[in-house]
């Protein structure tokens, strides 16, 4: 019976965690108790056998999988960071599912068309009808605009060009569209995208801010292609305010000789 009090110390004895006092107490008991001595020795023996047993090493896969998991997790966290960024990214991901969006777009137009037809034939009188029609038209317009803006964020250059080309379908480009186009004109890494953007903006040149933006963009272009294209546009628009930035551009040392000549011609024609 007495032995049970000491059993509590067994695990600590084997583990080497007993205080000197506890050890002393147990040793005292062991001297007089053969049963406990035997029990403890047997436990010590199996404890020693356990020392021989090591768990196997995990395979190298574990590290690879961990890194993949960490990367995926980091991406998902970044997605959540900014809602807006997330939405934009998801939109651009949607674009990569090529067949679906154009289909959705067509379906939306079809639905709106049906709605128009329904309104036209079945409801209300003149003023109300006009009002609803106007609303619908503006909705279509908005839809196109959203599509275009989303396309401009696409990582693929050809998709961005597609986005730019949508602007020809937008009749009244608002500030958001113009800003997006001007940003693309100045910052897009791909020269083809910038060229099509310039083309699209030329069609919108009746907007004062577009003209202003084009003029400001002259000094920002560093590709010879863009520089001569923008000179053509300015000549076409007969924009005299562009002379000053062109003269500034001429001061650049590494300017392409061909472009230099072209700009000089443009300036003489404009003045």
């Amino acid at each position, binding site marked *: 019976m007495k032995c049970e009090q000491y059993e*509590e110390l067994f695990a600590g004895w084997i583990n080497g965690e007993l205080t000197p006092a506890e050890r002393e107490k147990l040793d005292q008991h062991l001297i007089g108790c053969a049963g406990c001595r035997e029990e403890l020795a047997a436990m010590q023996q199996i404890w020693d*056998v*356990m020392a021989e047993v*090591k768990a196997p090493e995990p*395979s190298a896969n574990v590290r690879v*999988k961990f890194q993949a998991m960490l990367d995926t997790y980091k991406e998902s966290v970044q997605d959540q960071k900014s809602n807006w960024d997330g939405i934009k990214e998801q939109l651009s991901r949607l674009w990569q599912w090529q067949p679906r969006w154009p289909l959705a777009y067509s379906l939306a137009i079809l639905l709106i068309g049906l709605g128009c037809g329904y309104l036209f034939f079945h409801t209300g009188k003149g003023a109300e009808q006009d009002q609803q029609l106007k609303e619908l038209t503006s909705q279509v317009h908005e839809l196109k605009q959203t599509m275009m803006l989303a396309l401009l964020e696409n990582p693929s250059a050809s998709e961005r060009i597609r986005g730019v080309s949508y602007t020809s379908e937008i009749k009244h480009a608002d500030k958001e569209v113009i800003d997006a186009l001007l940003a693309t004109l100045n910052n897009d890494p791909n020269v083809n995208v910038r060229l099509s953007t310039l083309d699209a903006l030329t069609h919108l040149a009746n907007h004062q801010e577009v003209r202003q933006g084009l003029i400001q963009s002259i000094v920002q272009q560093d590709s010879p292609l863009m520089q001569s294209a923008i000179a053509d546009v300015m000549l076409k628009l007969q924009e005299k305010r562009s002379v000053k930035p062109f003269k500034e551009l001429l001061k650049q040392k590494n300017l392409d000789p061909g472009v230099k000549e072209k700009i000089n011609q443009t300036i003489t024609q404009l003045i």
Partner: protein
Amino acid sequence: MNSLTDNAIMLRVKDGDLDKMGLLFERYHRQLYGFLFHMTYHREVSEDMVQQVFYKMLRYRQTFTGSGQFIHWMYSIARNVLKDQGKRKQLQMQAGNAEQLADQLPGGITPEEQLEKKEARTGLYRAMEKLSDDHREILTLSRFQELKHQEIAQILNISEVAVKTRAHRALRELKNIYINAER
């Protein structure tokens, strides 16, 4: 970077420097694998669980307060993963699985030694498999993971006295199974 404590690293992870989890992975994935291995005697399952534990530590990084030790937190998460897995898949250890594994592990230097060690190991695995989960867990933590009773108490969330009692009973049971099998 090695001078940083586990807690300091984990607090950085909590603050959003997620890459730092890689350091903790390097430090602890083997140890964690060892624990899970003894709890399941299944290599692939253990590897998956290592993954899950690290995923949960990332996902629930905000719950790490830094008041306790990082590894205690890691073990509590590992225990939860084990519990979930047990519930979901009714993970039963297949009889003889541990024994087979014991055969595959590297042994001693001379052939005699190898044989002797293999026999001891096979016997031990066979006995370990027969223990209850609680008993196998406490022996794994104290013997294979070399944790102190006080640390085990924190991980299992029980008193230190309870740890000592349980450790003693587990060891006695293991000894009885082992000796009976030898006869």
